[in-house]
């Protein structure tokens, strides 16, 4: 009887251990509420889909991005200890997300939008970090980047970051309601400006035309102007905007596709999983930004 009890306990402990997130040694286990918050914020970023190849394991990296400087491949951010971020401390993960530095001090290329993720509140960063550890670990070695511009990482990139990269400032705590909440979700979490804001000659986002659309978006996409300009911008109602972000359905019956379709769908979570209140907050914020006349496409 006692042997049986011990066996059951061993199975229970083993099962719980297998289900628990992979936490670094000595770290305090996150609460369920924190993990839920982490998953929510993860979804509000679009599910970190840049780190997931379509129809492949979540966060395992390998997705290719071509830029004027060469080609990079998204890294494995699953909790695998050898090829992913499983051996990183929470602080190291947070530093990578918001400051773009790996534990060895190496600078991450700003294809990962740390200049805007820098605007995330500390509590959200902690929660996302905890959630990232719950996603199944995948052993997949990172593909090396191919930089074609001489001295790009040693000279050009630091100079570019210092001179041109706009940087968000993190709030003391994440705004909970209203337009401030919408602004926080759009700017820092959803990083909408990374695709929807045109870029200058230096490839920095032109924030004087924030969200005014981009003819040459990522992966050759044409990204619409979502400022409230009546002729060239987004003229949907706040309800229609919230509906679109929740379902992908446009008012004319068309359905989102491309990268927007991906971020709405997300990976383990996406924009579609945000609360109605947050989607409306985003919509109200989009209605409040300065209208910019910028016709995109035909």
């Amino acid at each position: 009887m006692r042997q049986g009890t011990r066996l059951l306990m061993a199975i229970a402990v083993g099962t719980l251990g297998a289900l628990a997130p992979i936490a670094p040694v000595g770290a305090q286990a996150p609460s369920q509420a924190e993990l839920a918050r982490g998953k929510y914020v993860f979804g509000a970023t679009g599910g970190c889909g840049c780190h997931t190849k379509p129809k492949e394991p979540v966060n395992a990296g390998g997705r290719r991005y071509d830029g004027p400087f060469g080609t990079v491949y998204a890294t494995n951010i699953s909790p695998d200890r050898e090829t992913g971020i499983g051996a990183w401390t929470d602080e190291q993960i947070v530093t990578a997300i918001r400051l773009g530095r790996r534990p060895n001090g190496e600078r991450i290329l700003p294809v990962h939008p740390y200049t805007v993720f820098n605007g995330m509140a500390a509590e959200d960063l902690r929660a996302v970090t905890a959630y990232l550890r719950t996603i199944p670990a995948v052993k997949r070695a990172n593909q090396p980047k191919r930089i074609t511009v001489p001295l790009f990482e040693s000279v050009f990139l630091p100079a570019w970051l210092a001179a041109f990269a706009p940087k968000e400032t993190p709030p003391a705590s994440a705004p909970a309601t209203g337009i401030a909440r919408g602004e926080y979700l759009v700017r820092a979490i959803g990083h909408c400006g990374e695709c929807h804001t045109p870029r200058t000659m230096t490839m920095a986002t032109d924030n004087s035309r924030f969200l005014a659309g981009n003819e040459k978006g990522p992966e050759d996409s044409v990204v619409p102007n979502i400022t409230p300009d009546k002729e060239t911008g987004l003229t949907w109602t706040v309800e229609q905007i919230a509906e679109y972000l929740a379902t992908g359905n446009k008012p004319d019956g068309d359905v989102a596709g491309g990268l927007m379709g991906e971020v709405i769908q997300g990976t383990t979570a996406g924009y579609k999983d945000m609360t109605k209140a947050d989607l409306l907050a985003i919509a109200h914020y989009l209605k409040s930004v300065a209208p910019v006349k910028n016709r995109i496409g035909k």
Partner: protein
Amino acid sequence: MRQPAIRRAVVLCSLVAIATAACASGGEKKMSVGSGDVVADRQRLMKLNGALWADAQAKGKAGNWEAIGVNAEAMAINAEHIPMLFPPGSLTDKSKAKPDVWQKWPEFETASKKMVAESVKLRDAARSKNQEATEAAMKDFGRNACGACHTPFRVPPPAR
């Protein structure tokens, strides 16, 4: 007596020859499904499906669940035509299709079959007058049915 026999033989041979020629030409020529401008045809079909879907959503908001069945039925029939509207070599300047359509043809065909399946599911739910099932089928229809192709295979239009 001999002349009619020859005439009959000539007529018979002619009929066989005509039938053979017809069969041969029928085998070579593919069934025509549209106006001849396949890009315009498929864009019309997509717009038609968009209108049907917008109408279905309006009916859902009005609580007219059963009426959604006819929209779903039409979308299912339309979706069955999708693969034949993307013949090889039909990627023109006017087309918003990505080359992936032809490079990953089995995936594209699977996605269009998913559109048919989701439409049939929605139709059956609506016809059964089961509001809960219809609402459930409606909830993810856009992403699952239309989005299954739009996300990987279409260059998104800069729609407003």
